[in-house]
């Protein structure tokens, strides 16, 4: 009798354990997906902070794994895939999910691709539904200065150097510790021969922006990126304003 009772007791416990593991297994996998999303959110935050502090865009993921940004001991569920990952001028990561064993399971996939648990990132279905190899997770930049720096860095050169640097670039900073330390100079090309404009970094949004009168009629691509309503002065002190489609003299 006791043997029968004990046998039934163990079977019952075994069944309960099996049931509970089905829930906990599912929850464990869901938490892995959540952790992946949270890691991507952390990377997006670190990416923005890096631009804000260093005034340049991070070259690769490893640049962010420091005490100041992600923390040097950042243990990400993504790290095996991300080590040596180059951002390649873009504020995005390739989709990590497709490389996991969960890929193809609709319930996990829809969570990863949705905006649930995402604030600074978004999932982009770049490919066709059957081919997700081109899908990526984009970063949303919030700070206006960071957006401007990202624009300059990504459309000009990867890293904004000082103008006196021997590796000349068409966009550059004023010399460090000088009066124009926080001034951005924009040239027509990397030879830095023909200056187009310069402005103090805190005036990037409203102006005044000083434009070179020799650059008239101001149809270079760089002038197209000036916001509407920005105040401009040319090097002969003539005042201009940027309209939606052109630069007009203010009389």
């Amino acid at each position: 009798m006791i043997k029968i009772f004990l046998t039934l007791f163990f079977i019952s416990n075994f069944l309960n354990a099996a049931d509970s593991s089905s829930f906990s297994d599912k929850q464990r996998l869901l938490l892995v997906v959540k952790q992946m999303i949270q890691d991507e959110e952390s990377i997006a935050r670190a990416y923005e902070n890096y631009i804000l502090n260093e005034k340049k865009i991070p070259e690769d993921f490893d640049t962010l794994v420091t005490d100041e940004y992600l923390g040097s001991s950042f243990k990400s569920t993504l790290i095996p895939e991300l080590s040596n990952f180059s951002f390649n001028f873009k504020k995005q990561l390739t989709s990590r999910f497709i490389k996991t064993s969960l890929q193809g399971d609709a319930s996990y996939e829809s969570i990863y691709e949705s905006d649930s648990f995402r604030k600074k990132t978004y999932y982009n279905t770049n490919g066709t539904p059957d081919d997700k190899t081109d899908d990526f997770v984009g970063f949303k930049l919030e700070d206006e200065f960071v957006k401007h720096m990202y624009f300059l860095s990504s459309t000009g050169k990867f890293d904004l150097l000082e103008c006196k640097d021997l590796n000349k670039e068409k966009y550059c900073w004023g010399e460090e510790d000088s009066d124009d330390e926080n001034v951005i100079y924009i040239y027509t090309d990397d030879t830095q021969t023909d200056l187009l404009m310069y402005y103090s970094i805190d005036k990037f949004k409203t102006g005044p922006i000083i434009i070179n009168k020799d650059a008239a009629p101001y149809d270079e691509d760089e002038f197209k990126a000036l916001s509407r309503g920005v105040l401009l002065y040319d090097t002969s002190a003539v005042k201009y304003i940027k309209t939606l489609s052109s630069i007009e003299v203010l009389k």
Partner: protein
Amino acid sequence: MLGNIWLSSALIVTAIYSASSVYKSYSDAQEAKEIQENYQIITDIKTLLAKQYNKNPDEVTRDEIMMHLPSGGNWEKVLLLNRNKGSNIDDDALVDVDGNFVLNESEQLKLFALRAKLQNISSNEEIEDGTHTFQVGNIEKNIVNKNKTIDTSVEKAIEYLSEEILYSTLTTTQIKEKLETAIETYTPHSDIYQDMRENDTEVLTVTQLATRREAYFKEKIKEQLILNENAMETKLYYYLKDEL
């Protein structure tokens, strides 16, 4: 002698009957309390997630609730019909995959308890094949939230377009294709709450409605780009102005 035995037996039977009645009442009260507690916990989790991620509480799924519950500690019991050891999510789910409460008609006590809980709360109860489904969370989505969702979609579309257009040399046709892809991918059809009719009598087909929503979304992209809020959007507008 016989009288004493009869009396003792009667007392024992009465005592057993009373004890079982008391236990049944206690157990019923516990069950009623548990289901009301579960409803409150699930509602709170849904509301929290909804507020945090700007979505409808009724759109929060069971998987998302599971992701929010702490692991271990038998927290899964709030998703189950009862808190017995043998209950599991596959056979005894109280919360279905869509995050709604489901109760079978045979669970009369739990149904009464839940209805008592919901008497002052707006909630939908649907009955199909003896299964009662209760929506957890508000049904109505507030307009401010929908505007936010539309704005977020515009933001995503602009991010996509800037990545695709500003860093490559594309032909006019390719730029047009990129814009079409962005509109197709990011138009938040379910969040565009305007009825899109030109007059009260107009009746739109599903296709017409979708086309007008896409046109509306395209207009929202143009409105944002025309604001020229930053260099990227200004330059993007320059490339897209003939297509918008």
